[in-house]
């Protein structure tokens, strides 16, 4: 795929639709050395780096527009409110929600899941009921449900996975029963890279009138997401994993569900009127946005969405798929290295272990080569228990990673073998 770009009236040249070397220039942090080696940042599933546009959005806001939103009558407040709400519209379009009222700004995926567990969950899950998750969930999609189940005397059920790290759909369906009150499932596993068949899962659950929450933290930076097409009931997102700032994310929820849910936190902004006798809650989405929100980072998240839109997630998806394929081949060529998570449908994440070498030692030696990977359980201890391993080393890719960086990773892994003898 190529696009004809007119750079001047006299010059026409053909450029690839996605030029990773040009894209890298947008990320100032990438251009540094670590331990005397060029930084190779392969920890994108933990957090992504920020393009200049996102950094500029934060600076611009504090330099020119900083003000509290929604109730001010002055110009700065008007500008801040407009920029804040513009991100809501951008987020709505980004995941194709039907209505911008269905986008609730929160700190991130963790807070979004806790919100649903503490509002929808507390209202609908009772003693003897069940919450269904999968064996590959991040702790943030396990613990809030465990807390709810403990409080209510309900039971957490776990859909098993096979050796490749794929959800066993038949087994999962068997666990869906009359007691199941909500299904919570990750779109893309941060530890294994597995992409779950969300549409099928939603179909199974909806056939039994069970709503589905999707943890979309790893999916939104890696593939186009359409919540109406998925037909999921809730979708949780973190800004910092999609090239935006930390401390901001959002929850998508179907309006009729959000309307019927009690508020999460009480405070300013989430009310329509307050007297000591009675408080009337605000309409959506403000009912769930108590207190002064993270205005600057919300606006910067808008800049991140715009950046991803410009690059087009279809291009990013294709780029990362090629990179993952190449990396899997390169790493598997090295004797003593085993890839953990070999699902057919997979993206972004390459988890691996090495014979007789602990992932922590792998991480230290790769770091000495300037290569940033994550080692440990990746906040998915049940996944480690499933494979009976204490930890893995994980390389996770972002839109700015190159084949040369994959080559550096492969060289680094050979170095690990050399040092550890």
């Amino acid at each position, binding site marked *: 795929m190529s696009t004809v770009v007119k750079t001047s009236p006299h010059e026409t040249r053909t450029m690839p639709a996605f030029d990773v070397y040009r894209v890298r220039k947008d990320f100032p942090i990438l251009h540094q050395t670590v331990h005397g080696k060029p930084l190779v940042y392969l920890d994108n599933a933990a957090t992504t780096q920020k393009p200049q546009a996102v950094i500029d959005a934060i600076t611009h806001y504090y330099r020119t527009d900083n003000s509290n939103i929604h109730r001010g009558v002055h110009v700065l407040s008007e500008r801040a409110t407009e920029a804040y709400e513009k991100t809501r519209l951008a987020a709505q379009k980004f995941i194709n929600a039907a209505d911008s009222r269905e986008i609730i700004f929160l700190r991130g995926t963790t807070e979004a899941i806790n919100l649903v567990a503490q509002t929808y969950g507390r209202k609908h899950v009772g003693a003897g009921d069940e919450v269904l998750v999968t064996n590959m969930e991040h702790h943030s999609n396990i613990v809030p449900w465990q807390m709810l189940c403990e409080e209510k005397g309900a039971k957490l059920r776990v859909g098993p996975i096979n050796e490749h790290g794929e959800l066993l759909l038949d087994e999962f369906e068997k666990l869906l029963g009359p007691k199941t009150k909500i299904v919570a499932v990750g779109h893309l596993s941060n530890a294994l890279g597995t992409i779950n068949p969300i549409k099928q899962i939603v179909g199974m659950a909806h056939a039994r009138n069970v709503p589905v929450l999707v943890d979309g933290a790893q999916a939104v930076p890696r593939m186009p997401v359409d919540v109406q097409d998925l037909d999921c009931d809730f979708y949780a997102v973190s800004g910092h994993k999609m090239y935006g700032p930390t401390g901001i994310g959002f929850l998508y929820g179907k309006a009729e569900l959000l309307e019927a849910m009690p508020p999460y936190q009480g405070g300013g902004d989430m009310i329509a009127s307050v007297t000591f006798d009675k408080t009337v809650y605000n309409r959506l989405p403000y009912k769930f946005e108590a207190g002064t929100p993270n205005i600057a980072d919300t606006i910067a998240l808008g800049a991140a969405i715009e950046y991803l839109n410009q690059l087009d997630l279809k291009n990013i998806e294709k780029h990362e798929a090629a990179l993952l394929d190449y990396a899997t081949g390169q790493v598997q060529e090295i004797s003593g290295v085993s890839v953990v998570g070999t699902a057919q449908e997979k993206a972004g994440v390459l988890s691996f272990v090495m014979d007789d070498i*602990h*992932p922590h*030692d792998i991480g*230290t030696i790769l770091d000495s080569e300037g290569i940033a990977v994550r*080692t440990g*359980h990746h906040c998915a201890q049940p996944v480690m228990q499933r494979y009976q391993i*204490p*930890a893995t080393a994980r390389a996770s890719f972002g839109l700015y990673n190159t084949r040369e960086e994959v080559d550096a990773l492969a060289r680094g892994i050979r170095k690990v073998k050399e040092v550890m*003898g």
Partner: protein
Amino acid sequence: MQELRELYQETILEHSRKPRNYGELPSANHKAEGFNPLCGDHYTVFLNVKDGAITEITFHGAGCAISKASASMMTQSLKGKSAQEAEALFGQFHDLVTGNGGQPEKLGKLAVFAGVSEFPLRVKCATLAWHAMRAALHGDQDAVSTE
């Protein structure tokens, strides 16, 4: 590369491959677990303390090369030592791996862990079994965590 070689000294690699005093000690009168939630390292240290002295010491569990070698060499160093001597040696060892000087000559073979001080993130690995040993001596029943 030099720093890496300092960290992964041959003695350390050798102990991580063939840990000494490795295994459970059913007759132990003190034991404690050490756990590093960051990387999943997990050890149990078993002690027999008689008349204030450590007569037997073993460890069991899994973890990285640094934590395993440290546990192995710790067991060698502490056998026959009093509880006070064990505490004092841990103090010396801690100073060594955190780069706070100390007196390496008092540490004997344990001085090979000096390279850890260049890798602050690995201090927890090097001291995990020591923390468990101390918890065992003090009779703490709960697992100690490095977090």
